[in-house]
């Protein structure tokens, strides 16, 4: 969830005025005498205090901190794998079998030893309860079995190398001796989570979650920070205020005017917004003018992405490339030929000539039309995100200059999502989840099996792109561990992105991250991007807190 103000202009203005005055909050020392680290993560609601790690929302409170995964896969370092609960993994049988060696000497926080049986149990639990299988790992798995004392063998129904990320990094391992006694793991709330992680749950109220360090953690000497608090914030303004007044040293907030509002307030305050995916225009490929590739090309050439970033996003979200590869995060994957093909990006003269060549005629009002129909498009966006609405207003002005009329429709969040999923739009401005390499976002965008007919919900591929050649490329990527082959496939996909424009990336989606480096050392940074910093990124933020050390 992105964090944007919904109170409106008046409220944010007042809050900005209010923020110029700083109020001290009493620091409450933890049991160890060390000041707790308060985490600032506005989700617009009070905490549910349900610690089911297989729940899309609740996962952020336990995965990485309390429950751990087999490996840690870092999206910011080109899918670098750090062994975690598994010490090693190996592909065999034509990349259809994956074997993990499980770490020994790890204990659950209740003292019971952790073993390979817990790993096999966890994955078979997801098979039994599809409602827990958030990453649909059982769409490609055929069996998960323990082998010997410390190995777990995963058999896939087809070679599915990219699923390593979901299996190893996204599925938290739970204790069999506790979960096997839970009557319904989908609906029974987990009030007292038992995991292997660096932290245990100390207390939870709707207003705050408190974690304390696991004294018997398997990574000796860690964690250094003994107590974590995560207060619940209902609005962006209150959460930003909490950060600005110095009550928190680690935030994941969208803050307007961050330099004066936050950075200037206190020595050591800083921010870093690493890009991870693309916020894109999704054109409806099945009907209307956007089914015509020339129109999509004209839109892409008509966008001054740098200006959209500056006006709509305070420059926090960098301009995206039509190749679909997020830079600098995945720059190693960028294809030079596709980049050359995309040209300089913003080129209004070319946008106009493309439309003219396609048979469009400029009318006296400055807008193109074809066969008597004006080139007029409606773009839907999430009305709850004020920045997205601003982005689209800039887009509307820019495209008017190349003769395309764009009307912005900022719908309520749930209506917007429903329309996007069901393909009920001409243009939609939205973001995909992505993953630790460009492949994941491209597969979400382009794989025809992700899509659905207009009117039924498609989890991804909302624009309804369908190409057997692209499907074949994506399948081929899934069956190889060769980096050279993977790169050549991503190169081809980038060319398709530039030539067919199934999706038009506009800006790069970033992780929101603020820190105070005078109070703690060890935060991730552009030079040491060891994990994604957002407090909603799992298991990443659990890895970040293990790296932190108080300076005072």
């Amino acid at each position: 969830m992105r964090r944007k103000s919904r109170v409106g202009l008046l409220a944010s203005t007042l809050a900005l005025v209010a923020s110029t005055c700083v109020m001290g909050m009493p620091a409450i020392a933890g049991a160890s005498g060390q000041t707790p680290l308060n985490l600032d993560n506005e989700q617009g609601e009070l905490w549910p205090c349900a610690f089911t790690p297989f729940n899309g929302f609740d996962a952020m409170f336990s995965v990485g901190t309390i429950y751990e995964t087999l490996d840690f896969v870092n999206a910011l370092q080109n899918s670098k794998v750090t062994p975690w609960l598994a010490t090693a993994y190996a592909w065999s049988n034509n990349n259809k079998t994956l074997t993990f060696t499980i770490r020994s000497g790890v204990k659950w926080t209740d003292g019971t030893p952790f073993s390979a049986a817990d790993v096999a149990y966890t994955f078979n639990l997801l098979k039994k309860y599809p409602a827990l299988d958030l990453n649909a790992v059982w769409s490609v798995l055929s069996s998960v079995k323990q082998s010997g004392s410390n190995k777990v063998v995963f058999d896939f129904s087809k070679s599915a190398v990219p699923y390593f990320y979901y299996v190893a990094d996204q599925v938290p391992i739970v204790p069999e001796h506790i979960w096997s006694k839970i009557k319904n793991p989908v609906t029974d709330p987990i009030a007292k989570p038992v995991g292997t992680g660096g932290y245990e749950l100390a207390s939870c109220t709707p207003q705050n979650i408190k974690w304390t360090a696991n004294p018997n953690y398997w990574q000796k000497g860690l964690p250094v920070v003994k107590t974590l608090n995560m207060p619940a914030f209902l609005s962006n303004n209150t959460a930003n205020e909490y950060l600005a007044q110095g009550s928190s040293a680690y935030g994941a907030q969208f803050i307007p005017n961050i330099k004066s509002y936050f950075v200037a307030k206190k020595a050591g305050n800083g921010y870093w917004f690493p890009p991870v995916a693309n916020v894109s225009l999704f054109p409806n490929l099945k009907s209307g003018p956007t089914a015509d590739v020339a129109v999509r090309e004209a839109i892409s050439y008509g966008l001054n992405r740098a200006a959209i970033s500056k006006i709509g996003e305070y420059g926090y979200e960098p301009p995206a490339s039509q190749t679909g590869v997020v830079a600098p995060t995945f720059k190693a994957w960028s294809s030079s030929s596709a980049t050359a093909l995309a040209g300089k990006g913003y080129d209004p003269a070319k946008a106009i000539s493309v439309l003219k060549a396609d048979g469009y005629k400029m009318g006296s009002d400055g807008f193109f039309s074809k066969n008597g129909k004006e080139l007029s498009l409606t773009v839907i966006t999430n009305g709850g995100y004020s920045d997205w609405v601003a982005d689209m207003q800039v887009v509307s002005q820019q495209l008017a200059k190349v003769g395309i009329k764009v009307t912005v429709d900022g719908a309520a969040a749930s209506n917007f999502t429903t329309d996007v999923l069901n393909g009920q739009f001409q243009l939609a401005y939205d973001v995909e989840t992505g993953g630790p390499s460009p492949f994941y976002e491209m597969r979400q965008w382009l794989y025809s099996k992700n899509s659905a007919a207009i009117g039924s919900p498609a989890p991804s591929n909302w624009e309804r792109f369908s190409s057997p050649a692209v499907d074949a490329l994506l399948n081929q990527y899934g069956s190889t561990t060769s980096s050279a082959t993977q790169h050549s496939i991503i190169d081809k996909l980038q060319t398709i992105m530039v030539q067919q424009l199934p999706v038009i990336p506009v800006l790069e989606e970033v992780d929101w991250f603020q820190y105070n480096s005078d109070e703690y050392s060890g935060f991730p940074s552009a030079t040491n991007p060891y994990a994604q910093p957002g407090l909603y990124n799992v298991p990443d933020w659990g890895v970040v807190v293990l790296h932190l050390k108080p300076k005072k």
Partner: protein
Amino acid sequence: MRFLARRLGFLLIALWAAMTVNFLIPRLMPGNPAEAMMGRLRGHINPASLKALEVAFGINTHQSLISSYFAYLNNCVHLNFGISLLDFPEPVSHVIAQALPWSLGLVGVSTILGFLIGTMLGAVAAWRRGGALDSVLPPVFIVISAFPYFFLGLLFIWFFGLTLGWFPILGGYTETATPSLTLGFIWNIIDHSILPAFTILITSIGGWILTMRNNMITVVAEDYVKMGRAKGLKPRRILWQYAGRNALLPNLTGFAMSLGFVISGAILVEYVFNYPGLGFLLLQAVENEDFPLMQALFLLITVAVLVAIFIADIATSLLDPRTRTTS
């Protein structure tokens, strides 16, 4: 007795109608909770989760509208509201139980205080018509009660919270404190409630002052008040026991209704002050298409308002025999 039975019958019919509307309206909203959850977690969970969420939330189970309606009525009677989808998998009853005391405490106390103070000021203002109180209070409070809650709230946060630093600016208590039954913690709660309560109080007081004053002016002109004066009763006795009591009657129903609406919290005040009450929960439930939570909250509000009106009706009939006659 007949009066009571009729009122009770009306209460039950109104309750059934409200429950039915409550069942139907959320289902007319576009989209479903799984899609809303995908939207809420956009960019942070695998798009493939849509299937898992639909299974977890029991969507597309092909239960007919009629059968789910009767299942719903049955569950309502047994106070079984199901599982919240917003706070999945917490039971709705638990989610509400956590927020209810905060709204009852904050909104309840400030509504009652607002009514008592407003009524008293209104009565006194009317008693001394044209006096200092009467010429100052009504216009001032008309202006103040026209302010939206949240605007006043933000002003107070800025002035009393940030500029002067007298009061905490957010939460029901210091967010990292552990709740306990100690004096220190209770004071912490009171300290945090002063600003939001004051906001509600001074915006709601104006209405009571004005209606009470206007009622009083009519009542004071009645013969029995003149009679009281002629008998040489103390002015204070006439003010409260003769005039005040009767002038209060029309306001009772209004007060009962506002008490009923205490359950719905004060959405904007809770939002601005980050207060853990029911109002914000209701907003969240609607935004996230959390049908079970929405239904339980609406039902709670309906029942509270109906019961409050029922009690007000009974109270009015006790205080004023004229309302009991059937013709």
